[in-house]
């Protein structure tokens, strides 16, 4: 099994990332110690996008191949995406409190975008659990997941139009606006977060597969 190896790699990377974040990365001159939450918040947010993207890719695969496994994989990826999305909202909220003194800022595009996506993808579960299992449910989930991945850039544009831009811009057209050591720490944290997603994804998927297998066996015994 490759799951234990993945889990071990994830633990190692996570430990390395935490070590780098607290002991290697320099303290921000402007925001002080609280800026270090950046190394959690942004990788979690990007991982969440990766989850939604992966879920939509699997949804597309399902619509083309009609393979039930792709449907389960799409569901699990979106489930993980919502978990990471909730974490993004929480860490973003903490960061906003630390640096601007408020728990919620409508001026922060990324946070508002995550709120919209969070609402959208929570409805995914409502849809999925209100339709009986079968090809119809898989089809609808897949269509909804594809709408979601298109909604991300459209919402981003909408939110950007709707308000002035006060979010600190770390990445722009001229590349990352930070020191080398900061960028290195960020990259390690991002890879660690992706590894965490991959591990959780595999764990949940293994659970789902065992679940389906047990159900099949029970049907046979009946």
């Amino acid at each position, binding site marked *: 099994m490759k799951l234990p190896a993945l889990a071990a790699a994830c633990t190692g990377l996570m430990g390395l990332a935490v070590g780098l974040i607290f002991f290697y990365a320099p303290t921000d001159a402007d925001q002080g110690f609280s800026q270090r939450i950046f190394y959690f918040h942004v990788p979690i947010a990007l991982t969440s996008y990766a989850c939604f993207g992966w879920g939509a890719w699997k949804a597309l695969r399902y619509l083309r191949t009609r393979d039930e496994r792709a449907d389960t994989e799409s569901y699990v990826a979106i489930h993980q995406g919502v978990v990471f999305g909730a974490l993004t909202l929480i860490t973003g909220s903490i960061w906003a409190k630390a640096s601007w003194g408020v728990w919620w800022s409508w001026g922060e595009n990324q946070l508002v975008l995550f709120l919209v996506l969070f609402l959208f993808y929570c409805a995914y579960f409502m849809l999925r659990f*209100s339709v009986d299992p079968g090809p119809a449910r898989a089809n609808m989930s897949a*269509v909804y997941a594809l*709408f979601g991945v298109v909604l991300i850039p459209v919402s981003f544009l909408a939110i950007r*139009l709707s308000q002035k831009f006060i979010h600190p811009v770390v990445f722009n057209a001229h590349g990352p606006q930070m020191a080398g050591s900061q960028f290195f720490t960020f990259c390690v944290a991002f890879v660690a977060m992706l590894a965490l997603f991959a591990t959780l994804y595999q764990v949940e998927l293994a659970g789902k597969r065992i679940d389906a297998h047990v159900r099949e066996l029970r049907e046979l015994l009946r």
Partner: protein
Amino acid sequence: MTYLRDVGALTRKDLLLELRARETLPSMLLFVLAALTIFHFALPRGTGETAARGLLWSALVFTALLGLTRAFVAEREQGMFDALVLAPCDRSAIWLAKSLAVFAFLACAELVALPAFAAFFTGIDGRTVAAVALADVGICTVGTLFGAMAVAGRARELLLPLLFLPMAIPIVVGGVGGYLWFLVLYDAIFALLAWALFEYVVAET
């Protein structure tokens, strides 16, 4: 050409059904007027124009939602979906016809709602009317697809607002801000997506 004829026949069926039963449109009209009246009492005195303009958009989105919830109820209750899916026409024609019918209802409701808004609150310029028309296209195309999904579930009426409202947020942003190009972009992207994906929504029901 057959495609257009199919769409025409299906749209005609929906409009005829509404003309005979008079279920959806009267409730939409009453709802939008009641909502505007509520807003009059909900808005603090003197906040008038700016706040009211934003509320117009929420009234329109919720009115559309009311119409969309009803859109596929007859099909579901009378088991007409099976017949429609079996019919020898492209399945996206079902979606296009239903979108056109919902668009017609929504436009009728707005023909009353916009003058009422102008009378109750503040005048409306041509830009707002254009934005409303463009937003209607987006609301109807996306809403019809999600409406077809929602009636398949057990929660039905409860489900559609949950599915649709997050999708409506960009429409409201474009509408309130008067970004017509953004609404055109939204309509084009999501109409194309809905047109391509509708067949999967009804295929297995």
